[in-house]
Structure formats: C-alpha cells, structure tokens
C-alpha cells in the first residue's frame, strides 16, 4: 500500500528515495535556501541592520521613506534572496559629481530614457554630491559628516515626495555604509540628528537604497519594446562597479535567470534584453583601476591597471564592440586610460560607455545631442557604424547645433513627465 503523501526525490545521478511530502521541501530548497545563507561581506549584519531600522521606526525614533505603491515599485532579489523593492516612477535624481562634470552623456541619456518612458522625476538643484570622494579618496571627512550629508539629501527627496535614485556607484556604496552606521550606532545617530535639527531637518532613512542600474534592470523590457536599432551583431562586455556589489555585497540585485544568479544582474540584463551578445572575459571581477586619488595624482598606476587588466583582456579574449559599465569613475578610467597605451604602440582599444547611453542609442537617441559621445575618447565610430548610426551625418548635425548654441540658441531640454505626486508640506518632527 503506497501512501499518497510520499514522493520521490532525486538524490544523485542514479538514485532516488521516497520520502514524505513535507520533507521534499527540505531537499528542493537546497539551492535557494543555502544561497540565502551565503553571507559574503556583511550579509548577516546587513539583514540585522534592516531589522533594527524597522524597530527604530516603530519606536518613532526615525522616519523611514518607504517605497510606496505610488512609486510603482517592482521587486527584485538580492544576494541573500531578500526581496528588494525598486521604485520605477517619481524618482529624485541623485546626481554624480563626476559624471555631470565631464561625461554628461551618462545622465542626459538616462533622463532621455525616462522622458521616453513618461517617467516623472525631479532634477533638483538642492542637492550636494555624497562627498564620498572625501572619504575614499582623501580621508578628509568623517562618519558623522558623511552620514549627515547622506541624510540631508534623503530629507530633501522626502520633502519633494520623490524616491532617491542614486546615479553613482560610490554614492550608493557610501550611502550603504552611512545608513548602516546611523541605524546601528546610537552615538552617530544622536550627533547627526543634532546637526540636522540645526538646519531644520531630521532623520529620514530610505527603506531601500537604489542604484540607477537596478532601475534600468527592472524597466529593461519597456526599453526593449522601444528599441529601434538592430543590436544582434554587437558584442558587449560588462564591467561592474566595485562599489555597487562589493561594498556591502548584500544590497545589489541578483537574478536567477541572469547568469544563473552567480553575478549581479544589472547591465548584463539590459544587454540581453536589447538582443546584443553578452561576452565574458577572465578579469570580470577586477576593479577598473580608478583608485580615486590615483586617477589624479598617480595616473601611471590607474592607467596601467585599467589597460592591462581590463581593456586588453576584454579586446583580446572577446573582441567586444563595446564595454558597458554603470559608474562614473569606471567610465572615466576605462575610457581615458587607453590613450597613452595606444600612443605607446599597443593596438587594443574598445569604446566605453554607460548602460544608459547604450540603451538610449538603441532607442534611437542622437549620439551627440543626447548621448554626448563627443566627451568619450576611445573610438566609438566602429560601434555606431555597426548598429547602423550614420555618425558622420550626426556629427555634421551636431556641429551646426553647436554653432547655433554659440549664437545664443538654447538646447532642447529633456523634461520630466508631469508629476502625479505632490511635495510634502508642513512636515513636522517628533524631535
């Protein structure tokens, strides 16, 4: 007599065993359950911090800026299989000091995509950078100042009722550290609170810290629907920014269907969604070589590392047409480091752009007016030709455009779709 509540479970290649149904779950959960316990870096501490954040909110000690339904969130999984909410609308653009300074195509491409998808956003002038350059680059700040700057920016976003979307990998990493400190250390919390109170603000901590590449990841299907160019012949390699997935490894997006969940999903996923070929190389996990100070004052190290550990392997092993990344420092280092090597007679070169610029190009954005490729130094002409963009014509158009600008014409600004949410007014604090 075979009881109906049993079933067969595969143990190895040639063996099965029959066990009760409730035990089957134990076997099947093996892979996801174990990975949920895979604690790289500070996963367990990080999850503990999130619990403490909920406790503090319940006690009324802090306000948490939740990813409410109004932000139309989508859920992704992180390294430990935690569910993370990614807001897709009504975003507060937390800009990167580096990008905006000298690779503006990064941000203009992102804004253009949002405008095409009718996503309302807030581009604030009441925003400082994270100032984490003073942390990782120079050591000329401290935990209290960095946390206060973090919370100041988050407070502005909360007042405007828009969810912060962080553009820079380093800002994202720094904010992960600061949030951890503010939640776990009462001392830091008190010091930061007293400073914020003096400028009429208080502690508002975002429920999730979201990097823009994660946003691109969750809306990639919508972007793919609007794809105008054929990318099927394009080989794209990915360079992931260290600070997104190594600094507090727990928080970044992983997806079982992208690269078997073994590597972070963003940027790789947009390449696949756009129909291009994703290629792999032996130094995927290596840093770009930015080093913060090194890119300014010890450039031989930065460019040697970038060229010999990243650019050369990418070109030699994969023949990639483009190298995509999602952080300012990475684009800068990988793009600018090729020039000196080429001057020395090395042949390998590959254009380096951000995933937002790549996606925008695929959707038909102008390579110069919108994607601002003229600020990039490594040769992008073969890439544009391959995807069917007549860059000579585009250059001509752009030159005429610049002439007109010189004569006083204003550029056609990218505008956000009209906002549906109202800014918060008359906010008061428990103190």
């Amino acid at each position, binding site marked *: 007599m075979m009881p109906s509540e049993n079933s067969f479970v595969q143990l190895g290649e040639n063996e099965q065993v029959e066990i009760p149904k409730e035990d089957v779950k134990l076997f099947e959960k093996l892979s996801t359950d174990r990975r949920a316990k895979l604690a790289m870096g*500070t996963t367990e501490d990080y999850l503990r911090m999130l619990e403490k954040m909920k406790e503090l909110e319940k006690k009324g000690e802090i306000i948490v800026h939740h990813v409410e339904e109004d932000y139309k969130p989508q859920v992704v999984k992180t390294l430990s299989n935690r569910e993370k909410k990614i807001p897709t609308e009504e975003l507060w653009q937390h800009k990167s000091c580096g990008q905006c300074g000298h690779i503006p195509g990064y*941000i203009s491409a992102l804004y253009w995509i949002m405008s095409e998808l009718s996503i309302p956003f807030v581009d604030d002038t009441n925003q400082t950078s994270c100032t984490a350059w003073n942390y990782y680059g120079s050591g000329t700040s401290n935990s209290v*100042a960095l946390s206060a700057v973090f919370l100041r920016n988050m407070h502005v976003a909360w007042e405007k009722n828009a969810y912060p979307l962080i553009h820079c990998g380093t800002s994202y990493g720094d904010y992960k550290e600061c949030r951890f400190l503010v939640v776990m*250390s009462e001392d830091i919390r008190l010091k930061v609170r007293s400073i914020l109170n003096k400028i009429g603000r208080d502690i508002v901590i975002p429920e999730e810290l979201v990097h823009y590449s994660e946003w691109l990841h969750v809306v990639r299907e919508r972007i793919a629907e609007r794809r105008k160019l054929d990318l099927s012949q394009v080989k794209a390699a990915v360079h992931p920014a260290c600070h997104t997935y190594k600094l507090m490894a727990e928080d970044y997006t992983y997806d079982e269907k992208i690269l078997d969940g073994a590597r972070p999903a963003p940027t790789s996923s947009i390449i696949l969604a756009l129909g291009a070929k994703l290629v792999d190389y032996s130094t995927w996990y290596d840093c770009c070589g930015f080093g913060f100070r090194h890119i300014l004052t010890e450039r031989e190290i930065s460019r040697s590392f970038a060229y010999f550990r990243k650019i050369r392997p990418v070109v030699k092993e994969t023949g990639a047409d483009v190298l995509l990344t999602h952080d300012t420092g990475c684009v800068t280092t990988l793009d600018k480091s090729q020039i000196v090597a080429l001057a020395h007679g090395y042949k390998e070169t590959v254009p380096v752009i951000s995933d937002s610029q790549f996606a925008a190009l695929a959707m038909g954005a102008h390579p110069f007016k919108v994607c601002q490729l003229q600020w990039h130094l490594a040769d992008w002409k073969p890439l544009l030709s391959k995807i069917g963009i007549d860059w000579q014509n585009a250059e001509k158009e752009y030159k005429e455009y610049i002439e007109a600008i010189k004569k006083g014409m204003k550029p056609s600004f990218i505008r956000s779709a009209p906002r549906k949410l109202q800014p918060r007014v008359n906010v008061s604090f428990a103190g």
Partner: protein
Amino acid sequence: MESAFSMSISKKVSRMLQRLNKDGWHYGGLPGLQWEAENARNADRELIQEIAKELREDVRFEEFYHACINCGNCTSKCPPFRLVDFEPRIVVQKVMHSKDEPELLYQMMDQYIWSCFQCYSCWEVCPAHNNPGGLVAILKEIAVKHGLNSAKKALEPYSKIVYKIMTTGTQITPDMHTTIALFKDWGPHKAELAKNIRAERAAVPVETMAGVMDKSWRVDEETMKELMFIEKEAGVFDAVEKTLKDVTDMVRDTAKEAGVE
C-alpha cells in the same frame, strides 16, 4: 688615521643628513620598508599611541576587524597588488599586531596605505568578514587629522578639488577642462574639447547642467551653505586643517561669506 678636523666635518654632515631625513624622504638610503620602520622608531611615542587608540575607538572598527587566518583571499583580488607591493592581508595582520606594537600602524601610514584603491574587493571575499580597505580608510582619516607628512604629500597635488568638494559638493568641473593642461594625458582629443567647452557645456540638454562651468550642476546657495555648515559642525574643518591649511582657510572664508556661523 682620521684627524680631529675631518671627524668633526663628517659628524656635521651626518647631523645635516639627519635634518634632511626628518620628513622621511631618505633619498638613496635604506630600501623598502626599512626607512618606514626607522621613521616609526624616531616618531613621537605619544602620537603613535594616540593613533592606535583612535583606530580602535572608531565606530566602524568593530564591524571592519575580526580574526585573520592569513588566507590571502583579499590580496588575490586586490588591484594595486598587481603593480606595487601592497597587500590588504598585511594591513590586517599589522592592525592585529598593533595591539602590542602600535608603531606598526604609524609605519603603514607613511606610504603603504596610500596605494589602496578603496575598491573593497577584499571586504567581499574575506572568510572572516574583515574589511582591510575600510581599515585603510580609517587610517587615512587619522593621518589627515594629525597632519602627517604622508597625508600632505598625498593630498596637496589636488587641493583644488578638495576645496571644490568641500564648498560646492561637486568635483571635476567643466572649468577644469578649459585647457588641456590638467588632463593632457587624456589624449589630443582633449584639446579639441577644451576649445569648445563653453559651447559644449551650454549644449547639454539637462537644464540643471547646461552652461554651468564652475560646478557639476547648478547648486542652490542654500544647499552649499547647509553643506559647509554640516562640515563645520561635524569637525571636518578642524580635521583637515593640519594637513591642508591653505584649503581649510579658504573653505572657512567661503563658509563665513556664505553666512555659516
């Protein structure tokens, strides 16, 4: 046999050499880490104890430092390790031994830690969950606070950028690209860009950035005031003063002009 006269000259010369060596740059002298050790031995004992105490009292230390089994996982992923003699494993080992030998920290802060890229590849793979990069970041902050020579030498070359971040909150700005001088190793294309930078910048289709040359985006006056206020209250001005006196003076002036009391 040496005369009394030549003896006193050589004594004078060695004394002068010692004066030259005060900042640690011992040209043509002992190789490698030996002069770091020499500097540490001659340094102020109180300063050394103070530094070791500050490291351990930092709020992040408990999170960043645990046991080290010398496995080398951190170093296997470390970028500068490929090019120079820097190992995050050594950093953690020295932090460990600094409990009884605090001069090891001082020794590291001389040259060693400034090689770190702060990429945190070490943090991600450490089986004991140490954060060597994080320990280095704390040590850099301590070096700056105490005005160590290594900090001065590392930061002075880009004082302009430190000033810009502390006041406007933005860093490499378009006005730094008006000539090719600052970034000439970024290629001849830079000259082309430099010529047209104002127009290029005016043509950026983002309203908060178009035409803004001195910052990365247009920043409200009130925002900069808040930033400098935060820095002042959090002790950043005091911390940076010993290392970058000129920059700190300028920032203080700017803050006062902006109305930050």
